Structures are given as structure tokens and as C-alpha cells.
């Protein structure tokens, strides 16, 4: 499998995701934002960070960058796209994913390990997980409070487009287990064709027992399948 990681000025999880992809035997290429041609890839990852300083609005400038046109083209032709954290914010700015990410409910940056529940394991991103499996995973963001309109929310539910929801250790999805105020505890969503996943938590941080755990590995092994 070939993967490409888009690097914007201010991306800072680009190395981390590259390490994870290479560990899982992806043939990975880093793509600088000024490039106008994307190599043929099975997976494109938009990593976390503060693209263009997140000035204006998180992901807003990256969403209008040159390379993004190529990402949109690839997405429309069925290429798998994974946006993590700032990558998720960028995907919503491009319109590839609907909804938006508001400031965290407590108005502070939050970095901690939280639990998320796998809501749909019948996708290219999640087939190695069990349905309702609980993952311990790190979040690190200022604007991770997912919001969308009622109609889209209904669609997300009906078409099983919710990838992950924040939960507690036992899998309960409630206000206490919602770290940032996201609507319905949503931590990650798919587009309607399920070839695009945007998520706030960082699976690339959970691939090594010495550092954290291996709960993120199966996302990558699902993809390589």
C-alpha cells in the first residue's frame, strides 16, 4: 500500500504518522504543501498540527491551499483519506466532510488519554476492530468540539457514518465522558462513501506499549488489509 502524508507549514504530527505508517509497512511519501502533483496513493493522510499557524481559523488556510485541490480530486475518485486532529479540521474546511469543529467546551487546550468506542467496524478504516470495542487514545486539541446540523446528524446516525464516540472506561456514552462538548460525543466521522475518515483523537500516538498502548494499530492494519 502506498501512502502520502501532506505536510503543511505548521503540521507537527507529520513525523509521528509517518512512523506509524512505516511500522505498518506502508510505502510512505511526504508531500510538501507547495507541490502540485500527488503521487498515486492508496491512502492520503492529513496530519495534526497547526497548519499555517491555525491563524484565521483552524484548518481554514490549509483548506484553500494548492495541494488540497489534488486531495479533493483523489478523494472523489475513491482514494482513502484520513484526517487526524488538524487534518479533520482541514477536511471540514474543504467540504470533504460536513460539520465543523468548535472550540472545546471548557475553552482550553486539552491533552489527555480518553476512551472512544468503535461505532462502525464495517469500513476500510476499522475492520480490524470489534464493534463497540473501547480504545484508550490520546486527544490534543483546542478546537475538537464537533458540531453539525440536525439533518446531517440524522444522516450520520442512519447511515452509520459515526466512526467513534467518546465514552468512559465501561463504554458509557454520556456527558461525563465527553471531553470537549462534541455533539452526541462524536470523536470521528466518515463521509457518505466511507472512504474519508476525520477524527480528533490521535491513533498514531497509540502504537507502542513503551510509550502508550497499541490501541491505534488496528486502524492502520485495517487499512493495509
Amino acid at each position, binding site marked *: 500500500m502506498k501512502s502520502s502524508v501532506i505536510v503543511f507549514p505548521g503540521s507537527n504530527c507529520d513525523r509521528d504518522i509517518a512512523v506509524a505508517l512505516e511500522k505498518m509497512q506502508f510505502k510512505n511519501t511526504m508531500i510538501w504543501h507547495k507541490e502540485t502533483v500527488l503521487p498515486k496513493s492508496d491512502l492520503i493522510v492529513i496530519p495534526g498540527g497547526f497548519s499555517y499557524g491555525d491563524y484565521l481559523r483552524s484548518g481554514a488556510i490549509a483548506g484553500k491551499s494548492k495541494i488540497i485541490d489534488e486531495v479533493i480530486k483523489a478523494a472523489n475518485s475513491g482514494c482513502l483519506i484520513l484526517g487526524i486532529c488538524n487534518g479533520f479540521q482541514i477536511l471540514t474546511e474543504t467540504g470533504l466532510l460536513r460539520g465543523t469543529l468548535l472550540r472545546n467546551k471548557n475553552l*482550553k487546550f486539552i491533552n489527555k488519554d480518553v476512551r472512544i468506542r468503535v461505532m462502525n467496524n464495517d469500513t476500510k478504516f476499522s475492520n480490524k476492530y470489534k464493534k463497540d470495542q473501547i480504545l484508550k487514545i490520546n486527544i490534543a486539541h483546542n478546537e475538537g468540539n464537533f458540531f453539525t446540523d440536525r439533518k446531517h446528524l440524522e444522516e450520520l446516525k442512519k447511515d452509520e457514518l459515526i466512526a467513534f464516540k467518546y465514552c468512559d472506561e465501561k463504554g458509557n456514552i454520556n456527558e461525563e465522558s465527553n471531553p470537549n462538548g462534541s455533539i452526541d460525543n462524536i470523536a470521528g466521522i466518515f463521509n457518505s462513501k466511507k472512504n474519508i475518515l476525520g477524527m480528533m483523537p490521535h491513533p498514531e500516538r497509540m502504537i507502542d506499549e513503551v510509550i502508550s498502548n497499541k490501541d491505534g494499530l488496528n486502524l492502520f492494519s485495517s487499512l493495509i488489509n
Partner: protein
Amino acid sequence: MKITNEIVEKHGLKPEEFEIIKKLLKREPNLLELGVFSAMWNEHCSYKSSRIHLKKLFTKGKRVIQGPGENAGVIDIGDDDAIIFKIESHNHPSYIEPYQGAATGVGGILRDVFTMGARPIALLNSIHFGDPKHPKTKSLLNGVVSGIGGYGNCIGIPTVAGETKFNETYNENILVNAMAVGHAKKDKIFYSKAKGINKSVVYVGSKTGRDGIHGASMASAEFDENSDEKKPTVQVGDPFTEKLLMEACLELMKDNSIISIQDMGAAGLTSSSVEMASKGSLGIELHLDKVPCREENMTPYEMMLSESQERMLIILEDGKENAAKRIFDKWDLDFVVIGKTTDTNNLTLKYKNNIVGEIPIEALASKAPIYDRKWIKKKPQKNKIDLKNLKKIKIEDALINILSSPNHSNKSWITNQYDQMVMCDTAQKSGSDAAIIRIHNKDKAIAISVDSSANYCKSFPLTGGKQIVCENWRNLIAVGAKPIAITNCLNFGNPENQEIMGEFAECLEGIKEACKFLNYPVVSGNVSFYNGTNKKNIHPTPVIGGVGLINKLSKPLNHKFKKENSFLLLIGKTFGHLEQSCFLKENYSIDLGMPPEINLLNEKNNGESLLQLINEDLVLSSHDVSNGGLITTLSEMSLSSLYGAKINKPKKLTNLINYFFGEDQARYVIEIEPHNFTKVEKILKNNDIFFENIGYTQEEYFEIEGELKISTKELFKINNRWYNNY
């Protein structure tokens, strides 16, 4: 313009210093030159009051590649790996403008580290605030924490450890010390010393604005009621640009283009250019028309004194300009050749084809004044505290008062605002004795901790200085690391006051003695004087940042109890020293008496023996005993885990308060498997270590035989109580 006495004073220079300037120049300086002198001769840049004392520090060692005097210290951690690190203060700006002050403190220390060729891998901080009830404390705390997080999170370097303390001594002068740690290849370290004549001097990074003019001079004076007016002297940080600058510099460092490189920190263009020239015994000529400016009509004076952030000065090898420029173009950063090295030994400033300033480099650097300020020795305090005269308190209540106090409460509400995991090598985060960062793609790791003990230093600086080095050393040992070297940030009051200068001299003497005995050299640091407002000085607060090495990291060691029915051993002797203790401070508001004695021999022996136990894989969890004594240590081990402990009453020391709350030094609590007891006992006895078997771990409850029984969950709640109500 005629330089009047008033202008001289406004530049923070004394009349007698102005006389020296005239002698060195053999004429009167113009305003630009006076500005350059003030930037170089202020306390912050020249270390004029501290230099003769700093020279006495212990700075050498087998693993020291670069000691104090460069942008940061460099140590050898084996193979081809070097660790580059330093701590620096940003106290004054953070009090005036907490967010930007703290943010640019982080930015500045990061530049010191990547200037030398290291990729930063961790950030730490030590922040001190006034009484939580003081009207300014809350907003200063919020501002500083957001500033530290805002910068580190954006640039993508994990903030992994630190300390947050409160004491009324900082009511009107908070402390914000930031430490950065980077990793480099031993043969790829870059220095600031200029070499060769007619080499291009290149300006890279952000444009120069009018922010931060006279910042370093501001940081070299006490505050008064008009300090809010000093806001314009605080710089504004842009972590996004710093990220670009860091990546561009690290990219340029891959080949051999750079002769020397220096970041523009305090005193900006002035200090960077003078430092490079001075170290290389050369002259330097700058064409100020070429300096990229953010604002129109900036004068040479403003350009030379601006402390705009995210800028670097580089001296390049011949013919490397174009390739280097391509890298900076890629990252959309300015890259302008603004001058050259010369053989004149002068700083020559040209503007619109005129020489607007010319000063011999040595007048700015080696000939800057050095003061051997008068100081007085602190007399040992004799006020003995008799427990019998104090109102009786139950052990349980005393413990609760400590655990729920601002200084001892859980700080995760702060550390959760910092990205601790980015770069994916953080094996241990804040909240343990030391953070552990793995070296990327390797098995080895470093442990890092920052520590201070201002109350001990205030009551008896010599012991306080020793204690703080030992405590830092202990924190690294407790996570299984071999301590290698330290950086220090010396926060003190007004050095012109003989008592304060005494605190400085004696703390330094203490630091030196401990460093020497423990073979724990100082490789970098920073001095911050004039911490005070209207003649009220802060407590002497030296902060030590230590780095230790873990050769093979399999599983990070921390202080959380791991299972039930493990044995608990207390390593080190308990005498029950209560003067200057948390017990007296938090329960009776008493801070009298002497700090606990430091016995360096025991310190070394106990620490090295524990390290031996850890290396033989005999320790399940370990924690050093520090503020709050044994009972606080044990509570911390309980409340952070699922297990509690059952502790026996001591056999020898009959007064339980002394036994459980005494702050005797060189002690650790360890948890071991019962079946390993004989092995552990043998090693400790062989090494002549005093230890006690104090009890065992159990499910759910923290218990002292016949005295108290609290569930670990309850302890956790108590420990989080203060912030939840703040």
C-alpha cells in the same frame, strides 16, 4: 543629540558606567551607541553581578561536551548522541504580560537549543505565583499556563514536566522559567563563535518590529507601581514562524554551510552580532538598511534594540548563500545578507552609506563591568519549634491539609493544557518524579526534572542550594535514570542589597558543593536578578533542571503502587526534621527554623544503591521522600494507583508527627516483590544503607496502623479539591 544624565539613567546605566564608556570609546557615544552599550551591559546580558560567583560552579565532567558560555549546554549520552539543554527565566515580561511573556520564554529557550543543531524533544517549566488569594494570581496563572501551552503545542514539542508553586513572596513578581531539551548528533553541533574574515552575516526568520525594545534592560531592574507602563517592552511570540525557522535551520544544518549561528534573544541583533564577533575575536559590520523590518521608518536604534522574536543570525561559508537561501525560501522566511565579518575588531553599524555607530567589540563584551558586590553571610536560625506548644492536630487532618493545599494539589488541570505526547516519544508524562523521553528510534531514554525549594533557600541558602541539587538528583534516580548534568536558573532579588547578594553567593556555594560531590556538573544556565517590586525581594529561588540517562528503556518506572501485598521499604534515615516543613506551613502557617541537613555521602550512597536495585529489576515502584515527608510520599503513591498501603507504626521514633511529616533528606520509598526481599536486603546491607521495612501494599485503603484509614479514591478527591474550588 547631547547625551544627558537623564538619558543615561533611562538606559539603565549608572553615571560611573557612562564614564567608563567614554573612556573605552575615547569620546562620547551617540544615542545608538549608548543604546548598544545599555543592551550589552545590563545585568541580564552581562552577568556583571553574578559572573565572579558563577565561575566557581562545578562545570566539568566526562560527559560534558559543552559547559556554560554557549547558547546551551551539551552532554554525551553514548553512541553518537548528544543532549543539548538549558533553562531560562522570563519573569519580568510574564508579570507585565503573562501570555506573551510566558510564550516568548518558551520560544526563546527553544531557539537556544535548536541554534546548536538539536531537534528539541521536550519542554519543561518551573512557575511560581503569589498567594492564590492575591487578586492578580488567578489571571497571571491562567495567562502563563495558556502562554506556555500556546507556544509549545503549536510548535509541536511536548511539554512534559514542571512545577507550579504558590507563595506570597511572588505576589508582585512571578517567576516563569522554561527549559528546553534537544537531541543532536555529537559531530553536528553548532556554536556561536565566528571564524574567518569577509564571511557573509545573514539575517533569517521574522521581520524586525518595534516590540521588546529595551526588554533586557527592563528585566534588569526592579518593578514599581508604574510597571504596567512597560508593556511595550514585552515581545510578541509567533510559534508558527518559530516552527518554520526551526525546520529551516535544521535543514540548513544538514550540510556544512554554517560557520556560526546565534539566535537573536535578549538584546536582539546587538547581542547576537557582538557575541559571535567577540567569541571569534573578530569585527562585524552590519548594513542596517538591509534588515527586514515589519514597520516603516524604523531607526538604526530601534533595529539594534528590538527583541522581536523568531530571528537568527548566521555566518555562512563562502559561496553557500544561494543554496541556503533556497531553504529559507521554501519555508517562506526572510533570508538577507546584512553584513560581513571584518578584521577591525569593531562593531560597525552602517545606515544609508554612513557609519552610524562604531564600537570596539571588547568594550561591549570582555571589558563590560564586573562587580564583586558586597554580601553578608546568613546566620543560622535558632528558633526551635516545640510541638508541645502547638495546638494538637490529628495525623489525618494534617495530611488532608497538605494534600489539599495549593502547593500539593494535583496539577493535571495545568498539564492537561500542554501537549505532552506529540513526537510520540514521551514514555512518562508530568506527575511523576521525572519525565522520561525516549531517544527517537533508539532503546535509550533520558529522564528530566525541574525542582526548586525557595523556603529552604530563604532560611539557610547554603543548605538550600545543596538540597535542591540533591532533590533533583533524587527525582532522576527514582525513575531509574543515572543523573548526568544540570542547568540552573537563578532567580534572586536585588543584587545591590548585601543580604540578597549573600543569598546568591551562598546558594551558589551550596549548589557547587552538591554538584561536585555527586559529580553532577552544571552545563548551562541563566541568572535573573531584580526580582522584586518596590524593594520587596522574592525568596531566593534557584531552579535546577536535571537530565539523566536510562540506557535501556523497557518499561518506565514511576511512583504508582503496582499490586497488593508488595513490601514497602523506606531507604534512608528518618530523624523527624520539622522546621521549614509543609506540616508546619500548611497546618500552622509557620515557616521558621532551618532546612533539613544534607549529608552528601548518604545522598550519593542511597541514590546509587537504589539505582542498582532498579537496574537489577527489583523495584516495582519508587518515589523520593520530599516536601510533606513520608506520609505525603506514601499518599501520592496510593492516590495515583488502584492500591493503598498498610503502614506499621515506627519502632524507634515515638513521635508520629516527626516520623511521618519530617522532611529528612536522601530518602526514598520503594515497592518490591516479597520474594525479592532477601536480594534487596543483601544489596542494601552490602552498601551500608539504612532502611526500614515499613509495611505492605493492599487494595483500596491507605492506612497507618491504629491512626488512620482513608480510601485511595478519597485521597484522590482531596488532592483535587483545591483547584476544583479555585
